[in-house]
């Protein structure tokens, strides 16, 4: 497999990235998000499908949409998604051959 889903981010990935970035870097955003996810996400130009990927902690879906992996990882930690949950979601996307150097 490639190290990257996209060698140049799509606008869709950019918009998701922007939410994940601001959520964990602007001072009041994480609290606002935790208080009312829908209201927070409405600040951004996201389709309902994209907003749903974030609000439902759809780690696999965010990965497939091309979200930057460091933003996704920081979001998983920052939202306290259990490690085994986020790992399992990612692992579910493994294709044959991707695991050849699994150890």
């Amino acid at each position: 497999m490639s190290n990257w889903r996209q060698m140049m981010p799509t606008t869709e990935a950019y918009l998701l990235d922007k939410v994940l970035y601001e959520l964990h870097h602007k001072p009041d955003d994480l609290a606002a998000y935790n208080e009312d996810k829908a209201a927070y996400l409405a600040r951004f130009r996201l389709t309902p499908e994209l907003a749903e990927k974030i609000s439902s902690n759809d780690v696999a879906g965010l990965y497939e949409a091309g979200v930057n992996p460091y933003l996704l990882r920081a979001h998983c930690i920052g939202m306290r998604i259990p490690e085994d949950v986020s790992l399992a979601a990612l692992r579910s996307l493994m294709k044959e051959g991707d695991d050849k150097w699994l150890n």
Partner: protein
Amino acid sequence: MAELTGIYTASHTPVMLNFPDRIPTELRTEIFGAYEAMGRDFEAGRPDALVVLSNDHLHNFFLDNFPALCIGVGESYESPIEHWLKAKRRVFTGDQAFGAYLLQEALKADFDPAFSMEMVLDHGSLTPLELAGLDPDLPIVPILFNCVQPPMPTMRRCYQFGKFLGEAIRRYDGAERVAILATGGISHDIATPRMGMVNREFDERLLQLMEAGDSEAVVAYATNQVHTAGNGAEEIRMWMAAMGAAAGLPFKRAYYRAVSDWYTGIGIGHFGENSLATVGSIDG
């Protein structure tokens, strides 16, 4: 004319600080010991200043203005920036004059770095400095490479930048003794289906090629094989730069283990005639 007291390469990962207990105590002690050994070797060179080659993990930089290279010219650097990182807050002293010199020389030498007068360093810089137990008042110049969001500078370009950097440091009049710490890699995946796997064959081959001293072969291997070693392995750009700065000094690995539960192939190495004792082994 500054002397390069040591050029070190070392992995970093937030997991070391956030989830230390995911690995057995004995292994953790061994790994932390290897970082401390690097720190002692580092300090034996008595550097006046430290150039840290690392990468930002989308904290200071976002996709609205993402630099391929960025040279720090701040008076000081707070750390960490991650609200979720389990590390105590520190303030690193910046070597502003040295940073300005390197920035101006880089532009003259046909590199196109961004510059920053204010950054909050993330775990990429903090972890190895913390684990090595380095004097927090040692003035630093952070130089950040894009290894985290394609499109990124090529491995060859990072090597060339390192060559420039070594020459510019050696010409510098403002410090007597300068060390370089390049941090990142080796094999790991962040937030991909492969996360938690380590390609130890990639790591072993990379370390072997570096020890063999053929820089061209190392750059070619890094360029052609990095996709087999995970998106976190893209951080070996800083190892390429360290190799460029070393300008032919021999490389020796000091530590290596593939640590799946910390998601990372953890390597520590050193360019130079004097020696860090090698601990750990490839089949750890």
